[in-house]
């Protein structure tokens, strides 16, 4: 499985820092799986998929590699290896999706696939309102969307785990899907354990091979690239 060249069909920029790159072509994948994106002469890094048909990536400009991806134009090429890893298992009828910061990207893919669910609530949080993105994608996929910002500039004030906690206590959910910063995932894991609700959390790590051999992404004996990036939490784990 060598990197495969794909051409950019469309570029959207939902926030100042985030671009969504839609590529020509498909790459059948499970929501939560990731690809390694190679820019010749530069680097190769993991990105979770926003969609697999057509292939869509969300790129937050956070360093030299993503800054270079932001300079690309429609018609330019990038190279993808994958998909890799274990994604979200689609279970339950009442799903709570919790996305912090850029963690909303794989949840948008997941939401588009959980069409059988009776109720889907997506809580997405960011520091400020202009950093929130994909709320329309989530709503379009049938989610009730709750916005949360730390500076109260949009939706509720606070962090997304505060809202998640309240929803989990007051309403009925049988599964929690989460993606976001480490601290947020720790809080979600604790909530799932305390409330006895199964959760599936997508983790991040520095990666090299992406195939479960080099050990670069290892944490406590688990390989984020192959055992994850989505891990079960809560009862029975």
């Amino acid at each position: 499985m060598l990197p495969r060249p794909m051409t950019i069909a469309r570029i959207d920029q939902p926030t100042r820092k985030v671009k969504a790159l839609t590529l020509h072509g498909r790459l059948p994948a499970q929501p939560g799986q990731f690809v390694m994106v190679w820019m010749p002469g530069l680097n190769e890094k993991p990105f979770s998929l926003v969609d697999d048909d057509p292939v869509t990536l969300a790129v937050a400009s956070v360093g030299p590699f993503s800054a270079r991806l932001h300079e690309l134009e429609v018609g330019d090429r990038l190279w993808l290896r994958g998909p890799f890893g274990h994604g979200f298992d689609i279970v339950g009828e009442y799903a709570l999706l919790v996305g912090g910061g850029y963690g909303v990207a794989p949840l948008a893919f997941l939401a588009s696939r959980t069409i059988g669910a009776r109720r889907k609530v997506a809580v997405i949080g960011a520091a400020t309102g202009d950093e929130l993105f994909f709320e329309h994608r989530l709503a379009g996929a049938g989610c009730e969307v709750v916005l949360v910002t730390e500076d109260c500039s949009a939706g509720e004030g606070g962090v997304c785990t505060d809202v998640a906690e309240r929803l989990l206590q007051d309403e009925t959910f049988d599964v929690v899907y989460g993606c976001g910063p480490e601290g947020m995932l720790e809080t979600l894991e604790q909530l799932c354990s305390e409330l006895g609700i199964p959760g599936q959390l997508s983790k991040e790590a520095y990666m090299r091979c992406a195939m479960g051999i080099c050990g670069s992404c290892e944490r406590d004996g688990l390989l984020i690239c192959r055992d994850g990036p989505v891990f079960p939490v809560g009862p029975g784990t």
Partner: protein
Amino acid sequence: MESMHSWPGEITVGEPDLTVELCGVRLRNPLVLAAGILGTGAELLARVAESGAGMVTTKSCGPAPREGHPNPTVLDWGHGLINAVGLANPGVDQEVKTIARAKDLLSPLEVPLVASIFAGTVEGFAEVAQKVDEAQPDFIELNISCPNLAAEMGRPFACDTGDAARVTASVRQVTTRPIIVKLSPNVTDIASVARSVEHAGADAIAAINTLGPGMIIDVHAGRPILANKVGGVSGPAIRPIAVRCVYDIYQAVEIPIIGTGGVSDGRDALEMIMAGATAVGVGSAVRYRGAEVFGAILEEMRALMTSVGYGSLVELRGIAQV
């Protein structure tokens, strides 16, 4: 009706004996996690042991921390892997903590630990070996496929009988633990390198390290894919070369061999043993069959041995030498 056929081997009572002894150390089975695969953490090493490995090897550590090469560093090119991770490691001072913790986790499982080391100089090898020795690994493995900084063009130690012997001798002086020297196939006569490290005090040979270096070019980008341009080739494609190297080494030395290179299933493991290996390294197969590959290969070895009528590995070692 196929399963009703009676083969001579089926009259063997009990399971085939998969235990082996390597330099006086008993292994519950011959499968060894090869260096550079899943050897980055103590918990990961323990997981490999739990999945069935008879012995595990840490990822090579050197005198100082190294970031390694930028990505892409590892590729699956269809018939094997190619890698240029660039000896990324936390440095020996940090690594000894991992080795000590791994020992604690592995001891109850009765799975010995090999600490793999490298350095850019002969003295560097001795220095790293001395530090690693204190963490009490069961074996110290010398990765001599790295560049010798003192040699012309940084020729690897493994590509010169004299350099390979000097590294071995310098480590021999600082440790009483069994020393495994891992040889490179990228030489004209691997048997002479094996003979030279045996004379210098090696207790065992591991063969082979990756082949090459090789290169994969992306035809759309018109450039090599690996950031380091070239990398070591491993996996199924190199197995016949590994088998031949083990065969040659077996004829040249008295010390045991860990046969490594493209072993993916039970048949491949038995092939290595018939070439002359005492133990069998498994690396790239983790890509194809996961960390659980060790248990799977053992099952395949047992089934194959039972069906053919082989009772133990000792009786198979080197039988292909004709």
